[in-house]
């Protein structure tokens, strides 16, 4: 499949990139592992591609005990999965990046791109030829959904691996571009709508991801189930972080991906653990609560019933793993 025609631009600063992005039909490219596939399929056909890879301000990985971690948006998933610092201080992130896609794709894909990954659907991510045979769905500008018949909106599935890990670690994200630069909690960029996964304007992009230094006696973990061990999106991915202080569980966060149209936190399950002495029974109880509260979508051939069972298993698994590290 040939790529469609586009004009190629190579800015060297955020300022230059921002001004180029004001051109109508401009899109950013970094790793390109998702974008170029969608372009080959004519899912998206930008007129201008603005390559961010030569912008120094988007690079770097630095840790400071007081300020925490700064990850430049261009940092590849491979670098994060192999970094001793990340493995030691932010195991959930090392595990999530290490389980994304395949080695070659991790060498290319960036954390900024993974955070901004568009939600997917087997009726949307298809070639132009395939799409001709159907009346467009919501995500293609039509007014129906093939997955949830009768649905009033698009229910495309959000399947990126790193966002739940970053949510569990309390990450914030710095957005730059043609509008006011802003730093906000990562959760705030997600719309939870299938139509468009994040609320970044076409002229905006991620500069960096900021994660606070891990609290003392804390642990985190990411667990993923997929049909294949490699080159696959999760059927479900769950990340947990918890801190033990004074024998009790504090600051617990549980987040998951591939259940609905965005990465979500499960506050009800977190509350069950909060300020309690952690036991195997309590973790099992939190897992049951997550299973009851989250309403997964039947998608990509995986039933909601199966996914719900799996939520129990992975919430329990990731909490136990995080607890072991926190002890």
């Amino acid at each position: 499949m040939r790529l469609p025609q586009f004009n190629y631009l190579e800015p060297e600063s955020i300022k230059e990139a921002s001004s180029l992005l004001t051109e109508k039909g401009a899109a950013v490219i970094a790793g390109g592992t998702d974008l170029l596939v969608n372009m080959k399929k004519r899912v998206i056909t930008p007129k201008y591609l603005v390559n961010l890879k030569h912008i120094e301000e988007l690079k770097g990985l630095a840790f400071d005990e007081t300020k925490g971690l700064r990850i430049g948006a261009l940092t590849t998933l491979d670098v994060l999965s192999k970094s001793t610092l990340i493995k030691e201080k932010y195991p959930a992130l090392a595990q999530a990046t290490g389980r994304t896609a395949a080695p070659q794709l991790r060498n290319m894909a960036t954390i900024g791109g993974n955070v901004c990954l568009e939600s997917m659907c087997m009726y949307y991510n298809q070639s132009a030829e395939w799409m001709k045979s159907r009346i467009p769905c919501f995500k293609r500008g039509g007014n129906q959904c093939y997955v949830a018949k009768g649905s009033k909106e698009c229910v495309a599935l959000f399947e990126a691996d790193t966002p739940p890990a970053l949510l569990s670690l309390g990450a914030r994200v710095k957005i730059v571009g043609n509008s006011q630069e802003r730093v906000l909690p990562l959760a705030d960029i997600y719309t939870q709508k299938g139509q468009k996964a994040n609320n970044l304007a076409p002229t905006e992009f991620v500069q960096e991801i900021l994660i606070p230094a891990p609290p003392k006696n804390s642990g985190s973990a990411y667990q993923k189930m997929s049909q294949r061990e490699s080159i696959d999106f999760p059927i479900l991915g769950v990340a947990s972080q918890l801190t033990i202080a004074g024998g009790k569980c504090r600051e617990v966060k549980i987040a998951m991906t591939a259940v609905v149209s965005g990465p979500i936190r499960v506050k009800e399950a977190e509350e069950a653990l909060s300020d309690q002495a952690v036991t195997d029974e309590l973790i099992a109880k939190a897992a049951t609560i997550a299973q009851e509260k989250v309403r997964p979508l039947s998608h990509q051939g995986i039933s909601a019933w199966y996914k719900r069972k799996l939520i129990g298993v992975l919430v329990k698994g990731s909490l136990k793993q995080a607890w072991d590290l926190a002890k």
Partner: protein
Amino acid sequence: MQQLIQLKVNGECYETAVEPRRTLLEVLRDNLYLTGVKEGCDVGSCGACTVLIDGVATLACLTLAVDSQGKEITTVEGLAKNGKLTLLQQNFVDHGAIQCGFCTPGMVLASKSLLDDNPKPTEAEVKLAISGNLCRCTGYKKIVEAVLATAK
């Protein structure tokens, strides 16, 4: 609109005119006639188009040729010197790790990038390193054996 680009492939410099939309895979095969790099799925799911860019295993089907300038690109043609196969390639032959041969260039380069970083990998590490490469003849076992034999 076409533009002139310079690519450094297997130690040699090439100059060629391409449109920005041409992938590195297309340019290596169609402009430079380096047909060792294969087009499999063309959407980043099979690893047949794996090349090394500055020593890192990369998918040429999802890399723009215009963005590959100023880098050292290695294809499978760049491994053998004076007609003599590298130890890794010879082990692929000796262990019967080649069936139809279509995945072989990608497998060899993915394995090479592993061995360059980690000369003594475990079996699990070898399997992980080639986990982005599909072999539809399903000859994975022999490939793992060939890589492990090279590491000895």
